[in-house]
């Protein structure tokens, strides 16, 4: 065992003292682990979201872990879905990210996004696989925190949080509007519609619309929107055109807009959402450009009595040719009139106050009040023909002058009624035919010929020598009249009268002497016989004198006859009558009267002488009585002399009247001229022609042509008459008569100086003769009338000259009526 292997060198150390109580470093490991875990837990707790609660009608598609998305980014998860206490709603508890939660305030809205397939495309396709999710929308301002919300059943219009402008459109019907329908501008979609809803009155539809932000500036307050849904077919000169905007708008509807007039305010300036009217067509939209878009129309009604066939919904309402509204409805209503119910047709108008001149600022009530004042001033509604070919009617508002006062009750329900006036509906065919007929029947040729003839006649008249001679003739007449007045006969009349009076005075004085002597002579008995004889004589004189009234009556008849005669005839007859009077006055019978008286007086004188010589005084008293009677008879006969003078006066007056006819003729000429002047061509043209023809005829008649000549002739005759008067006429006849009376008086003076009563009667005669002379003294009036007549003739001549000149200068005025 010598080679026993020795053990290897061993590393042998004394074991150190055991430190049993030593804590190993290994405990750091669990401590570190714990620390890490705690930190993780803490951070998890810190990052934990905030629980919110959303109410939904139903929880379709919502379950635990359903995400809540904002701008398509998940910002929370549904933690629990439960019911509310009364099972009415579903409560969805969502754990929302901590940094999002502060933004959830009262403007936050939530809805469930599910797959949606529409004509414009498919939305929410991702939810087909991933399931529905809750989408939320809220603004970017953290206001008051809120933890409980009510979810929407349908996605809101601006679901995608697009920036843009919201507007409100007002349409009469929502038939062509659908939610999501596009808003097009020049064919490109720039927005879309929300769901249409009825307006609060039920009169129309309002729909919110969204315009994308980059296009919002295209919309101003002057923008007009119109409906482009469906398609339109238009037939024009270029043929048939079919307009379809887009397939989507064809089926789903769509609206377009345009801003033609600049100057509108951009959107969003006012406190409320901008509101626009939606028009049926682009044309209607463009026609409304001058109207404020967000202006309510004024609704009024009309009860027409006549048929409204041809009037339809949408027919225009015009005021003086300007479109101020349209017919919005025509329907039958029951109206109570006088206790009876009647069916009336009520036409409802929608009027635009701004087109009636009522300011946009006016409230609806005030606008209606102003409109009521229009009606009180005479505004009425009537039917007029809008299109004569189709017979379509329109309503026209007219201001009727002197209309019966009627009022419009602004508060009448459902709306006020405008009073109506007579309609102006014309039948096309009748009117057109009538117009053509009338044009066809216009006698243009005759009219022209008549005008030419008229001018020729007027020219002939104006250049007629006789007409030119008329003033000269008149002057001659006046000179003659002047001569008459200045003639010796007239001038000598007072002297003659004086002589006559003196003669009569002498006669009276002599009569007085005779009476005195008779009384003294006491020859009454003789005188009685003598007076008896004288009585017979006087009776004879009375008989002779009785013939005078007959003559006077005849004169009167003649005068009235002359009065009734034409001028020429009158003048001639008057002339003749005067000649007759002249003849009568120079008649022997008349002239013989004084002679007879003279003879009788001579006899009386002889008798008186006999009495004086014979002394039959006892009979004197009776004789005187008889003489008195005889004197009275003479007086009576003499009394007729004033009547004669009166007749003569009358005759002169009739002469005056005859002369006065001249102004009438002149006046008639004047009237004729005026009538010719005032003929209006607007009256029937045929009548104008006829008038011209008549004028022409009048002017062409011999009477008219001879008028100057006739005037001249008449004046000539008047001249002659006056000359006759002057030469052997009435004045000298009267003078002669007075001279004869003077002779008679002288004879009576010689024969019966003792009859004083006679002088009184003679005095009356003289007074009457004085009156006759006075009548002639009114020559100034006669000359005035003559001067007036002359002036009238001058005026007539001037008028005719003016007319002639006018027509000569402007022949067409006959046609145009100027």
């Amino acid at each position, binding site marked *: 065992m010598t080679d026993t292997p020795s053990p290897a060198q061993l*590393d*042998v150390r004394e074991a150190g003292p055991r430190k049993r109580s030593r804590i*190993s470093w290994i*405990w750091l490991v669990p401590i*570190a*682990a714990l620390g890490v875990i705690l930190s993780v837990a803490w951070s998890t707790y810190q990052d934990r979201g905030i629980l919110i609660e959303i109410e939904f009608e139903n929880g379709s598609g919502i379950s635990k872990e359903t995400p809540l998305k904002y701008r398509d980014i998940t910002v929370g998860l549904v933690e629990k879905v439960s019911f509310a206490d009364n099972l009415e709603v579903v409560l969805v508890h969502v754990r929302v990210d901590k940094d999002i939660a502060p933004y959830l305030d009262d403007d936050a809205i939530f809805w469930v996004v599910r797959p949606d397939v529409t004509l414009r495309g498919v939305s929410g396709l991702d939810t087909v696989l991933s*399931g529905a999710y809750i989408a939320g929308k809220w603004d970017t301002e953290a206001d008051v925190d809120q933890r409980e919300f009510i979810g929407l059943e349908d996605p809101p219009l601006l679901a995608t949080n697009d920036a843009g402008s919201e507007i409100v459109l007002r349409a009469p019907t929502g038939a062509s509007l659908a939610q999501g329908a596009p808003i097009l501008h020049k064919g490109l979609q720039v927005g879309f519609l929300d769901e249409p809803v009825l307006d609060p009155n039920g009169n129309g539809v309002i729909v919110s619309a969204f315009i994308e932000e980059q296009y919002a500036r295209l919309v101003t307050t002057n923008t007009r929107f119109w409906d482009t849904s469906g398609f339109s077919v238009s037939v024009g000169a270029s043929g048939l055109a079919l307009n379809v905007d887009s397939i989507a708008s064809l089926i789903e509807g769509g609206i377009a807009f345009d801003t033609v007039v600049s100057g509108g305010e951009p959107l969003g300036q006012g406190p409320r959402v901008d509101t626009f009217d939606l028009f049926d067509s682009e044309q209607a939209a463009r026609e409304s450009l001058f109207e404020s878009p967000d202006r309510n129309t004024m609704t009024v009604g009309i009860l027409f009595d006549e048929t409204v066939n041809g009037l339809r919904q949408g027919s225009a309402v015009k005021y003086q040719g300007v479109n101020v509204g349209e017919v919005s409805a025509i329907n039958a209503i029951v109206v109570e009139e006088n206790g009876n119910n009647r069916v009336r047709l009520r036409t409802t108008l929608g009027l635009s106050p701004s087109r009636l001149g009522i300011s946009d600022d006016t409230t609806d009530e005030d606008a209606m009040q102003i409109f009521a004042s229009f009606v009180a001033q005479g505004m009425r509604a009537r039917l007029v023909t809008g299109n004569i070919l189709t017979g379509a009617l329109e309503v026209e508002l007219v201001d009727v002058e002197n209309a019966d006062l009627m009022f419009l009750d602004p508060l009448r329900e459902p709306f006020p009624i405008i009073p109506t006036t007579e309609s102006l509906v014309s039948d096309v065919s009748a009117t057109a035919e009538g117009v053509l007929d009338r044009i066809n029947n216009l006698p243009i040729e005759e009219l022209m010929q008549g005008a030419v003839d008229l001018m020729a006649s007027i020219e002939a008249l104006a250049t007629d020598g006789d007409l030119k001679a008329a003033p000269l003739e008149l002057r001659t007449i006046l000179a003659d009249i002047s001569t008459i007045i200045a003639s010796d006969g007239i001038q000598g009349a007072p002297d003659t009268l004086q002589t006559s009076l003196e003669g009569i005075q002498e006669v009276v004085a002599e009569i007085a002497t005779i009476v005195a002597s008779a009384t003294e002579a006491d020859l009454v008995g003789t005188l009685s016989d003598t007076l008896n004889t004288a009585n017979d004589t006087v009776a004879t004189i009375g008989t002779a004198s009785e013939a005078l009234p007959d003559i006077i009556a005849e004169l009167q008849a003649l005068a009235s006859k002359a009065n009734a005669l034409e001028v020429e005839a009158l003048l001639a007859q008057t002339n003749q009558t005067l000649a007759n009077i002249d003849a009568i006055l120079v008649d022997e019978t008349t002239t013989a009267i004084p002679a007879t008286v003279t003879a009788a007086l001579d006899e009386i004188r002889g008798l008186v002488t006999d009495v004086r010589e014979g002394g039959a005084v006892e009979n004197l008293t009776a004789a005187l009585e008889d003489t008195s009677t005889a004197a009275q008879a003479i007086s009576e006969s003499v009394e007729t002399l004033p009547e004669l003078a009166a007749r003569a006066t009358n005759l002169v007056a009739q002469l005056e009247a005859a002369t006065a006819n001249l102004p009438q003729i002149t006046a008639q000429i004047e009237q004729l001229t005026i009538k010719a002047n005032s003929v209006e061509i607007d009256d029937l043209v045929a009548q104008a022609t006829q008038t011209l023809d008549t004028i022409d005829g009048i002017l062409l008649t011999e009477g008219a042509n001879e008028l100057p000549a006739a005037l001249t002739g008449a004046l000539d005759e008047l001249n002659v008459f006056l000359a006759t008067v002057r030469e052997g006429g009435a004045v000298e006849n009267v003078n002669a008569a007075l001279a004869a009376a003077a002779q008679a008086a002288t004879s009576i003076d010689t024969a019966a100086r003792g009859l004083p009563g006679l002088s009184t009667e003679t005095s009356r005669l003289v007074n009457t003769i004085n009156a006759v002379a006075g009548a002639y003294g009114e020559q100034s009036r006669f000359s005035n009338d003559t001067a007036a007549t002359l002036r009238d003739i001058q005026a007539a001549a001037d008028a005719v000259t003016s007319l002639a000149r006018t027509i000569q200068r402007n022949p067409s005025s006959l046609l145009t009526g100027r």
Partner: protein
Amino acid sequence: MAGTGHTAGLITAREAGLVACRRCGQVQEQDVVSCPRCHATLHSRAPDSLQKVWAWLVAGLVMFIPANVYPMLITDQLGSHSESTILGGVVDLMHHHAYGIATIVFVASIIIPVGKFMAIAYLAISVQRKWVLNMHQRHKLFDAVEFIGRWSMIDVFVVAILSALVQLDSLASINPGIAAISFALSVVFTMLSAQSFDPRLIWDADRADAT
């Protein structure tokens, strides 16, 4: 004998003044510090063995909490996002009537880790209290814990494989959650805890009891 733990007539290496190298099995005298053959440090008993066991065990337990609270898998499938914890996954599987898979997942992810915690704690306590009963069973238990420890990572492997395979962008993707890391750490700590345990301590109680 086995029931009482007393092993009469046997002496231990320590009693014989020897120490065995745990690496190569070379027996040396007790005072030798390192193995002359493999140069491993020689200890008659592993130093601070129980402290290490407890420390690792506590760390494993701590990590086991988030492993069950936090999601293991984060699945994004066509926009739908789901996170599932271990127990949640088991419940889901059961709702889908996949009882077998549910059982496997439940056993591998819940039963085995919890059993390991309990086993290690039992061994450590028994050594500290110098229990003499069932020494052989305890040693077998220790062997079982050591053996099964490596298979505890199945869950983590599944998550790792799924995460690697299912990355189809938006269509579907699976990512590990916090729980996966926690669970892996928990398993690692538990294995370290089991490794720190010196099974010779089990038998020391018998010798001490004998002396």
